[in-house]
């Protein structure tokens, strides 16, 4: 009993003594600028869950913090919830929007809580892709007219006696069931259910040289690792996808854009001006996405690397 008490007392003293060497909290002033922050204030930036978006957000946040002195609060949210945040005042900006005409109608036209803030400069492509080994071995597979010839190869435990068309990340719009039906393809749509599932499927297909055809999109960091080959469907023409059940044409090219909350736009602060001016190319985004996804840099470090390599582009945004 006594021994225990002694050791305990000794431990306390030892702890107290070792402490004397350390640096005290509060002795050195906290780093950080308070001068510019007043002008810009807090900037609530939604971060949707895919790497391309994260690249946009990383660069905008980096410039807003370093050049404009804003306090950037990044919020990790799915698209739906981010849009909802415009109304509740919790989100100021979405910086890579894929179409979402229904949400535009709801929040921009009806509720009037959001406004468009221009294009990001990125072009989005959606379509059917095959792994590179297949395109090399069967060059005519990239034409949809020949797909039925290969249907048997794509058979899996999920598709019965038809070929499997591996679909969907649930976040993206898909017309694939209608397409299969209207183009009279001998395929069954199987819902992979997540981007991770699609990427893993393509990775395995290329590594093991197994057949696979599936839904994918660009820009996407994975394409830097594995250059999937797009299958051409009947060409898209305006209005050919008007009736969802009768679609028989390719997906349109998506012009990716930025959406901000109405309040944020009306205030017209420096952060809003930056978001509005921000624009870059698919190659730019791919570089930053690669830093994040393949080189495992943090979003902030990835943005820093790109900004330091592209001072002119950043200057152009800030000049406006």
């Amino acid at each position, binding site marked *: 009993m006594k021994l225990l008490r002694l050791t305990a007392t000794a431990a306390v003293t030892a702890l107290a003594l070792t402490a004397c060497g350390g640096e005290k909290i509060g002795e050195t002033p906290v780093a950080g600028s308070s001068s510019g922050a007043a002008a810009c204030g807090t900037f609530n930036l939604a971060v949707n869950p895919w790497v391309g978006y994260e690249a946009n957000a990383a660069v905008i946040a980096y410039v807003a913090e370093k050049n404009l002195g804003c306090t950037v609060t990044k919020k990790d949210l799915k698209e739906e919830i981010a849009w*909802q945040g415009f109304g*509740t005042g919790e989100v100021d900006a979405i910086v890579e929007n894929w179409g979402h005409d229904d949400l535009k109608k709801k929040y921009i036209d009806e509720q009037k809580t959001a406004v468009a803030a221009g294009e990001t400069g990125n072009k989005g492509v959606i379509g059917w892709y095959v792994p590179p080994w297949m395109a090399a071995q069967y060059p005519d597979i990239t034409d949809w007219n020949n797909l039925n010839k290969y249907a048997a190869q794509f058979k*899996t435990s999920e598709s019965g006696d038809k070929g499997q068309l591996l679909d969907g990340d*649930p976040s993206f719009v898909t017309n694939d069931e209608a397409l299969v039906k209207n183009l009279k393809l001998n395929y069954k749509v*199987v819902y992979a259910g997540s981007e991770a599932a699609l990427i893993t499927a393509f990775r395995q297909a290329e590594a093991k040289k197994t057949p696979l055809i599936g839904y994918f999109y660009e820009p996407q960091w994975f394409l830097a690792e594995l250059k999937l080959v797009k299958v051409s469907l009947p060409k898209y023409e305006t209005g050919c996808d008007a009736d969802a059940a009768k679609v028989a044409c390719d997906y349109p090219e998506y012009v990716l854009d930025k959406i901000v909350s109405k309040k944020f736009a009306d205030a017209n602060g420096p952060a809003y001006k930056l978001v509005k001016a921000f624009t870059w190319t698919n190659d730019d985004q791919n570089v930053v996405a690669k830093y994040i996804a393949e080189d495992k840099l943090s979003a902030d470090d990835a943005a820093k690397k790109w900004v330091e390599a592209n001072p002119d582009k950043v200057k152009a945004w800030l000049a406006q």
Partner: protein
Amino acid sequence: MATTTVGLQRTWRRPGKPVLVAAVLLAWVLIWVPARGVHTLGLSPADLTPLHHWLNDVNDTVGANRDSSPFFLYFFNEIRAAVDSLVTFLQDLIAQPSYGRPVPVLGWLGVVAVVAYVSWVFAGWKPALLAAAGFVFFGLQGLWEESMDTLALTLGAVVISLLIGIPLGIWAGLSDRFHKLVTPVLDFMQTMPTFVYLAPLTLLFLIGPASATIATLIYAMPPAIRLTAHGIRSVPRSAVEASESLGATGRQKLTGVLLPLSKGTIVLGVNQTIMAALSMVTIAALIDAPGLGKTVIKALQTLDVGTAFNAGLAIVVMAVVLDRVTTAAGNRVRQTGRAARFRRPLLAVFGVVAAVCAYLSHTYYWAAEFPDDVTIGGTLAKSADSVALWAQQDLSTATEAIKNAITYALLNPLEALLVESPWWLVGAVAVLLAALLGTVRSVITTAACVALLIGTGLWQDSMTTLAMTIVATAMVMLLGVAVGVWMGRNRFADRIIRPVLDAGQTMPAFVYLVPFLALFSATRFTAIVAAVVFAAPVAIKIVADGVRAIPAATAESATAAGSSAWQMITKVQLPMARPSLTLAANQGLIYVLSMVVVGGLVGAGALGYDVVAGFSQGQLYGKGLAAGAAIVLLGIMLDRIARASSPSKGSN
């Protein structure tokens, strides 16, 4: 199919019944052959029913009126503010820079010391050492801040769950009427997929800690209510009567007899609430909940298995620490109730040590910020990566074969039977089975569930999901009996396997989705495997406990009578552990159903995909909600049929 096996075991009691069940199933197959493909009520993934449109409209109306309705201004906003300030306070305390300081109030040393001290006071030496080691491990993983954010959010959710749950549990323990009323609500809270209510929650409570906490506590509160009620209901009548005869008032009865005698069970409820709250960490991250969940989700975007594993491991360690501490505390409450006298001086001494550590961590950088030069997180991530890569490259041919064998031999025929049958045929079979195995009430419940399933507009998807659920539950029970009996008979095996089971239960599914996808492709089988990983541990633990609970005298007399190990298992231990087997099947089923949504992420399609898509696309919101309801209905239907068929009504 657990229902039929339970029925088969009862041949000796009510002969004829298994024959009738078999006859019903045979008739089903015979009618299926000519009738297949008609009245299957299919609905394509992009199509909606009027109900789904209506649900969309309701959602839109709520969103549009958020800022003007007094209900919001004075009710939801107040709740939000209260919850927000509680969680933010906890974060300021241990996780985030706060009060104008670059670090939280308590640094790592302080948190470790306080946690160890509290664990020692309530649970004893061993749990305290485990807790200290576990918390230092978070720091070594390079995940101190994330872990503390997760801990703060979990604690917040648990505190509120208990504040509301324990009084409700006491009420449900005292009042039969309230108990009956609250049970289906709790079933609903536990089986409704979280994805369904995440988006509405952020509408009601905005984006932030409040929504994340409330999402967590919806799932975490039911065990606290159930187990508190169960504890109070299990107090022996004689104890209550004795106090009544002494003229105790209602209040005295509660505080003097009922609560003290049910303390142990209530602590178990606390334990289960903590576990449930931790299992929500990754899902809550989808609405910006801070902490380890975010690390997992971010890593999944780049398919970074190693980083996800590192963060997942921290969640497992936190769960194991909190589980062992609360379990030990519960056992102590049950045994003694009061600290032994000689501990008092020690209490003071260690209290001082903890306080000094807390002070140091408040004052000095070295004790506040975990030193980042001793990280092992990178190494852990790399080794997890290489294991995953090895499995993907060298095992996937073999695993692909297993997948195909089970899919073609078991899953596809079963699915064909369920999906291609006309709805009236499946409905009739379900009602007949309920009638054969259960009571009038189970018939009514089953019929109502079938009708409501049709009402959701997702009948065919429900049947696809049902086929997967049945196969997964069968695999869970197979594992549950095999491993559970082994663990029940062998203490050493128990000690080795139990941590693995804990990991299976608490490791977020998002961590192992990518390797599983590589091994089994994006298929229904992958979804089944994920469900089995999550559900089998519960079944195994319940069976093991059941086998161990068989009185030693029974086992000894069987051994004396010269029975072999096999006879011992099949003739004595399994029959005597039958209530546990039923409970294992029931819990296994509920856990399998709670993985339906995760299944939707890896190729299961059907209801799981509907829910995920509804969460992701506005125009599918109503359909996702309906799919969530369909999952709940499947759960209720299967649970009621299975429970009706068991002689001792399995308690949950």
